[in-house]
């Protein structure tokens, strides 16, 4: 109680300081006068009386100081004083302050910005209730397109029965839908979900309600839950949305609620619908087909269940499924199921890239901090005299250390302020960068945790910097003072420290440069990959005339759509400047998600050989010419390859090599095969190969070419709706005219993905370009800071050795020798730094192997280039102080 009261009084004392000081002075003066008066009363003369009174007082100033210490919070007040003093000292060396604050701002800014991404995308707890109990199930198999083949309804059923550790399994089938509104038709991403989905995911509505088990099954009204993002983007956050009707795929759907903001995996979603919205999802083919895999699965761990137990149970259930239904799981394709914590699944595409960037940013900060440490050390030497004077006036070592800390805090926190300003500017850019890698990109912000990280970083730096400056041990100051020291030559310890810092800077710069070099070469290699097309003057677009239901179940609609596609093609072909126009899906360089097993007539698979899969693509007779896809042998499709005529196909080079090694495929027959065909209108008839097309980079420039089967547009459903337009030059200039034609024939159909081949190609390269650009800018920054560091340390060493150099020169050393001496001093540091850096870079390159393409992690060209660059910059940085050393005039130095 009494301590609390005293503490409160002291805190209050901080604020009433001025009045209290005046009162104290008055009180002390009164005391002095009373005492003087007392002496006079006893007969002491006035002067002597005052002297005696002063003598017993023990000094008015000291007394006032002692009371002040007692009154407020001296620690805080003296920190404030320290900071005031630090500001004043820094104002006196503005160049030093500016260099340090800029360096730190860059280093801390890079870290703040990247950390905000890491936190938003990887570290922040999920918004889902008990989000750490959510797991994502992934079924995969060998071969292209096999990394995530999702699940079929029977598989989900078996897992549900076989894994009691999973309290609930939610089904989520990604799908697209055409949203028709007054503003036109737009394709949106939807998820068809089971009624337990939101309960399992632990998500709540911000408006209305979410779907529940009573929304499952046939015969219920179709309903939609909008995601928060879609609601804001499309409806401006209109709170009267609940109960409104949306037109999706020409059917009316009631909006029942808006979901809280939440990330979706694998892709962003606009609305979540109950299953009745898709006839297909309730059809027997979907519900009973074991190989009809269209469903993503997220589950919640039961209370008390562990991830390990869930994994074991899922593995056991999956093994039982494989042995019971061996036709659905080709053993050679190695079907498997992984149980992954949901937050890991959300972060998996981003993780490597982000840790790379975080590492790069940390390296920049290390270099920046090393530079600041060096600057501080050098400034420390110049300030020795000042410190000695302060010590003489009674400042202890602890007090001096606190003064240094205050200065460094001012510097690092000023750096942090600029850093945060930079990060605020950069965060929008980073969100669009991260959106390529993570569904959580919109959660990136500079929140309290990020700012806390920045402050913690700054304070840690300040502490470190305050302790690199070596202060003498308590008591040795007296020796200095009596020796009349004005400055000490840099002690051995300090010199070693400085050199160590320079070596570290060089090494870290080399690592960053090597990373930047490898990523840049990756990007260049990627941009040089041939698309497989003979030209880039190709414009593609996608026009959807049919809903999925119409496509699958309505032959009349299919026929009319084909007729309209044909009219579009012919009208576009008549446009001036158009060389060819064609129909075919997907557009060239875009991958198809329609894949089936395929077999060749008269060829048996070897034991253990995986079933070949191929992408199904459609093409009309003009497609290969229009897209610029070369035909290696055989002929393109002809107008005579009609619905009723003989069934023909064209396969690509990859499939030809797989099915017919050392044989001419033309004239051979192949057929689609597999259980899953039962659920499609595609027949398993034999089809004759009429041609072999060259490979194209449909899965991205860095992807392995996949096996492809082209079917004639006339002999297949009108899937995809792709149009391909080729021009002599400037194909993008045709966009408006082509779009007008499409609009005339199909006024309400959405026109999507209007892209030239060059743009598609760029989409594949640009994430790498951003990576390379970010790491390169970090690398360049690092090298610049490091170069300044080397030059600075050597310059300092030269100025500390002016006397020695003067003596050497007067003893006969010529300028060249002096210059070589300094160069050697720098060269040794440079060489050690290079060796360490290259070693470190070799390790770092192996870590980022997954981000490289077309370059080995130990790519000699990159490493030699980086070493040479760094050496060149280092030598230039050494040259300047070496020249200065050589210009030292021995006569002048010796005399001073």
């Amino acid at each position, binding site marked *: 109680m009494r301590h609390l009261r*005293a503490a409160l009084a002291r805190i209050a004392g901080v604020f009433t300081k001025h009045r209290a000081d005046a009162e104290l002075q008055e009180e002390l003066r*009164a*005391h002095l*006068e*009373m005492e003087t008066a007392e002496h006079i009363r006893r007969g002491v003369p006035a002067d002597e009386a005052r002297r005696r009174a002063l003598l017993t007082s023990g000094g008015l100033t000291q007394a006032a100081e002692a*009371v002040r210490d*007692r009154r407020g919070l001296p620690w805080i007040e003296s920190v404030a004083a320290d900071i005031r003093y630090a500001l004043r000292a820094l104002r006196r060396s503005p160049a030093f302050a500016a260099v340090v604050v800029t360096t730190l701002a860059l280093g801390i800014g890079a870290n703040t910005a990247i950390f905000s991404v890491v936190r938003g995308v990887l570290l922040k707890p999920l918004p889902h209730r008990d989000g750490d109990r959510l797991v994502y199930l992934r079924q995969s198999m060998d071969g292209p397109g096999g990394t995530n083949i999702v699940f079929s309804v029977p598989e989900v059923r078996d897992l549900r029965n076989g894994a009691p550790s999973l309290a609930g399994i939610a089904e989520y089938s990604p799908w697209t839908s055409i949203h028709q509104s007054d503003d036109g038709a737009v394709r949106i991403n939807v998820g068809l979900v089971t009624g337990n989905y939101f309960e399992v995911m632990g998500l709540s509505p911000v408006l209305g309600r979410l779907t529940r088990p009573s929304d499952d099954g046939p015969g219920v009204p179709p309903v939609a839950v909008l995601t928060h993002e879609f609601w804001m983007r499309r409806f401006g956050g209109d709170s009267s949305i609940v109960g409104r009707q949306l037109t999706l795929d020409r059917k009316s759907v009631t909006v029942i609620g808006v979901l809280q903001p939440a990330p979706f995996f694998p892709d962003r979603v606009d609305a979540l619908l109950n299953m009745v919205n898709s006839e297909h999802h309730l059809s027997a083919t979907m519900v009973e087909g074991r190989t009809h895999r269209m469903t993503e699965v997220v589950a919640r761990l039961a209370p008390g269940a562990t991830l390990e137990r869930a994994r074991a149970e899922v593995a056991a259930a999956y093994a039982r499924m494989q042995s019971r239904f061996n036709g659905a799981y080709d053993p050679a394709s190695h079907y498997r199921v992984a149980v992954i914590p949901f937050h890991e699944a959300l972060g998996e595409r981003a993780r490597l890239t982000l840790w790379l960037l975080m590492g790069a940013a940390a390296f920049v900060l290390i270099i920046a901090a090393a530079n600041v440490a060096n600057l501080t050390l050098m400034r420390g030497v110049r300030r020795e005299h000042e410190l000695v004077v302060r010590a003489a006036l009674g400042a202890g070592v602890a007090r001096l250390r606190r003064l240094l800390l205050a200065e460094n805090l001012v510097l690092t926190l000023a750096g942090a302020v600029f850093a945060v300003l930079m990060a605020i500017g950069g965060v929008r850019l980073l969100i669009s960068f991260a959106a390529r890698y993570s569904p959580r990109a919109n959660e990136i912000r500079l929140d309290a945790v990020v700012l806390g990280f920045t402050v913690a970083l700054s304070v840690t730096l300040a502490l470190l910097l305050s302790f690199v400056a070596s202060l003498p041990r308590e008591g040795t100051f007296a020796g200095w003072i009596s020796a009349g020291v004005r400055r000490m030559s840099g002690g051995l310890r300090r010199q070693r420290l400085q050199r160590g810092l320079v070596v570290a800077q060089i090494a870290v710069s080399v690592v960053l440069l090597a990373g930047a070099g490898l990523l840049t070469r990756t990007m260049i290699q990627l941009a040089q990959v041939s698309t497989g097309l003979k030209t880039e003057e190709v414009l593609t677009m996608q026009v959807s005339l049919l809903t999925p239901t119409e496509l699958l179940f309505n032959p009349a609609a299919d026929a009319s759509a084909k007729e309209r596609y044909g009219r579009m093609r012919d009208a576009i072909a008549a446009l001036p400047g158009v060389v060819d126009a064609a129909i075919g899906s997907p557009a060239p360089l875009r991958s198809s998600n329609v894949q089936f097993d395929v077999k060749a007539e008269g060829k048996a698979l070897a034991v253990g050989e995986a079933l070949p899969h191929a992408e199904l693509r459609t093409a009309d007779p003009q497609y290969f010419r229009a897209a610029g896809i070369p035909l290696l042998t055989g002929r393109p499709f002809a107008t005579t390859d009609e619905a009723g005529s003989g069934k023909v196909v064209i396969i690509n080079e990859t499939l030809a090599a797989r099915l017919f090694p050392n044989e001419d495929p033309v004239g051979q027959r192949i057929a689609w095969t597999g259980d899953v065909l039962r659920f499609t209108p595609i027949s398993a008839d034999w089809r004759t190969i009429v041609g072999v097309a060259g490979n194209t980079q449909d899965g991205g420039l860095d992807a392995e070419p996949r096996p492809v089967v082209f079917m004639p547009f006339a002999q297949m459903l009108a899937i995809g709706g792709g149009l391909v337009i080729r021009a002599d030059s400037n194909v993008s200039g045709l966009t408006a005219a082509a779009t007008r034609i499409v609009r005339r024939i199909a006024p309400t159909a959405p026109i999507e993905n209007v892209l030239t081949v060059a743009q598609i190609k760029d989409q594949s390269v640009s994430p790498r370009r951003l990576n390379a650009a970010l790491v390169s800018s970090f690398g360049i920054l690092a090298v610049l800071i490091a170069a300044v560091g080397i030059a600075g340390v050597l310059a300092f060493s030269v100025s500390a050795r002016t006397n020695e150099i003067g003596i050497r020169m007067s003893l006969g050393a010529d300028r060249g020798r002096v210059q070589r001496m300094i160069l050697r001093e720098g060269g040794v540091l440079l060489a050690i730094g290079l060796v360490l850096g290259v070693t470190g870079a070799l390790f770092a390159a192996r870590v980022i192997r997954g981000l490289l393409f077309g370059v080995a992690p130990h790519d000699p060209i990159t490493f030699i280039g980086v070493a040479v660059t760094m050496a060149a910059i280092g030598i230039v940085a050494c040259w300047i102080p070496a020249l200065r050393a050589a210009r030292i005039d021995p006569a002048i130095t010796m005399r001073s």
Partner: protein
Amino acid sequence: MAEKLDVKQGTLALMILGTLDVLGPLHGYGVARRIEETSKNRLTLNYGTLYPALLKLEQEGFVTAEWRQSENNRRAKYYALTAAGRKQLAREAHEWHQTTDLIAAFLAPKREAR
């Protein structure tokens, strides 16, 4: 001249409280004089010792201070004991007696043993 003693830590507060208890409200100079006289000039109090101690007692709520005219018409800050201060004085005096008894008990047999 009598031997000068340093004021032992913790005892000054007790002396101040005791002084104010006996003499009633008093200014700093008066407290100092009284302590010096009571100690027969073996203790001298410089301001740097006295005033922080007074401030501490004030902060703890054992004394209050107010500005008044002194006997010879000078403005001075008078310190007065509060109820809490009186209680604290009793408690500390009690503890002090116990401590001195205890220490005396320790020192007495030592002399006998010699």
